[in-house]
């Protein structure tokens, strides 16, 4: 009964979340005295997984699965879990993995905990800590089914190297036409920019930026840091930035290593959306802004003066 992870990939390359999931799986496998099996779709080279403790990879190569199709992918995961007699299936908290989780859970008659933020607190009974109330609290959840499905919150465990000798096996699942009832017509990716979901650093702007014409400041700072850009709800409501960049309770959650909020006062809903980020920096003219209460570092000052200086100093720092 190994632990099964869905090793997410894009264009044949594993995503960072796959390595975090493998690292996490390895730790659980050690405590349960078992091994880690990864399921990989249409990847040519799976050897990278061996750096993070994966013992076996099931390789699925099928052109019908070239694009993510939730029902088909969920069926493959279910079949792989049955084949491996898996008792724990691990998924990330990416948009695609969240799509899969409930489908996999029902087909395996499993219990599911999403947004898990650490190793199980106990394996008998099986208890995990997870985010709840939009990151305003944690909930300790007990899963009582034989098979458990966990969705690991991004950046909640980290990537830990642990070498293993990897065996590779081709896996051919049984698929039906019904698996492809949702047809992909087109895909639009934000090109040339770091997406919020993949970003380790997020630079976010609020109404303090005064208008969309000043967004270059946010973008320049993001560029020098290799960060994604985001915004507060009023900014997306005003149409300065697209809704896809709105972070907060009803927007996107951000669990970055570093979140820099510029000209954002820190409404409770915004804080809830970014609370899982590790380090928060606030730049705001108002020293009474609520964001300063939850930030790690703060600068009281005008964004139009502070940010250009910060960009120059970061460029010099990066150039060292």
């Amino acid at each position, binding site marked *: 009964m190994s632990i099964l992870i869905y090793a997410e990939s894009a264009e044949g390359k594993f995503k960072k979340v796959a390595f975090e999931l493998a690292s996490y799986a390895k730790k659980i496998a050690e405590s349960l005295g078992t091994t880690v099996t990864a399921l990989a779709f249409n990847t040519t080279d799976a050897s990278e997984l061996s750096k993070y403790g994966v013992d076996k990879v099931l390789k699925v190569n099928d052109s019908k699965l070239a694009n993510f199709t*939730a029902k088909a992918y969920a069926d493959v995961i279910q079949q792989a879990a049955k084949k491996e007699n898996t008792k724990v299936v691990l998924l990330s908290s990416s*948009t695609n993995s*969240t*799509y899969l*989780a*409930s489908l996999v*859970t*029902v*087909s395996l008659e499993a219990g*599911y*905990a*999403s947004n898990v933020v650490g190793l199980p607190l106990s394996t008998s009974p099986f208890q995990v800590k997870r985010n*709840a*109330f939009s990151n*305003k*609290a*944690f*909930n*300790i*959840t007990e*899963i*009582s*089914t034989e098979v458990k499905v966990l969705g690991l919150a991004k950046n909640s465990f980290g990537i830990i190297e642990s070498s293993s000798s990897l065996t590779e096996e081709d896996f051919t699942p049984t698929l039906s036409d019904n698996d492809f*009832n*949702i*047809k*992909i017509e*087109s*895909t*639009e*990716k*934000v090109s040339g920019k770091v*997406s919020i*979901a993949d970003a380790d*650093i997020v630079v976010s702007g609020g109404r303090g930026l005064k208008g969309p014409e000043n967004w270059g400041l946010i973008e320049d700072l993001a560029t020098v840091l290799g960060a994604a850009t985001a915004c507060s709800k009023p900014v997306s*409501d005003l149409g300065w930035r697209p*809704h*896809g960049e709105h972070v907060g309770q*009803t927007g996107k959650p951000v669990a970055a*290593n*570093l979140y820099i909020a510029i000209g954002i006062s820190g409404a409770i*809903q915004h804080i*809830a959306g970014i*609370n899982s980020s*590790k*380090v928060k*920096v606030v730049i705001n003219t108002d020293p009474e802004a609520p964001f*300063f*209460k939850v*930030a*790690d*570092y*703060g*600068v*009281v000052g*005008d964004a139009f*003066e502070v940010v250009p200086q*910060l960009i120059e*100093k970061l460029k010099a*720092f990066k150039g060292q």
Partner: protein
Amino acid sequence: MKILVCISHVPDTTSKINFTNNDSEFDTNGVQFVINPNDEFGLTRAIWFQEKQGATVTVVSVGGPETEPTLRKALAIGANDAIRVNATPTDGFFVAKQLTEIVKNGGYDLVIAGKESLDYNGGMVPGMIAALTNSNFINSCTEINIEGTNVKAVREIDGGKETVSTTLPLIIGGQKGLVEEKDLRIPNMRGIMTARSKPLTIVEPTDAPTNTKAVKFEKPAPKSAVRLVAADNLDELINLLHNEAKVI
């Protein structure tokens, strides 16, 4: 077209979250409850289909009598009728099982549920209903258009969006984008008066196993005070981020 909108009764987004009974239960004291925002976008889109394409809209919630004001609000916004499954929601699977019974018995063409509720954030109910009814399913749906039984929809993906097509019957996990926030409806007096006479049916729950349970709640540890850096000393900020926080 028959549409079912699944409504979660959740604390208002400005609520302070506290726990009671030795941190085993959510403390509802002084908390205002609202329609789950993700569900509200779905409800408003359903009302659009009702007004423009002649759909009927039923709203459903799993909960005790305390959830009825939330369902009445949905009726005041324009839903035709409401169903309350008379049970305390224990976990996502329990809720999905109850809603599945309603879906199977009601012959709905489109089921809209929020992609997640803002209390337990499980994000599992719409997908579980889809799996339990073996229906077409689109999660994180931000746009939906229907002609006859043909559906064109847009869903969010990490770093972009994807346009998909499928056919009814369909279940979606919806979110902001289904309608703009400015288009959300506030019940007017006529809607509130009419809602009082609209049917609200109470249904007893079906058996479902408890696969998971919330054992305990915790609040994040209090933060230490912010470390302020002078605006004319940004080298210090870079130094702290590099050497202390180790994030750049």
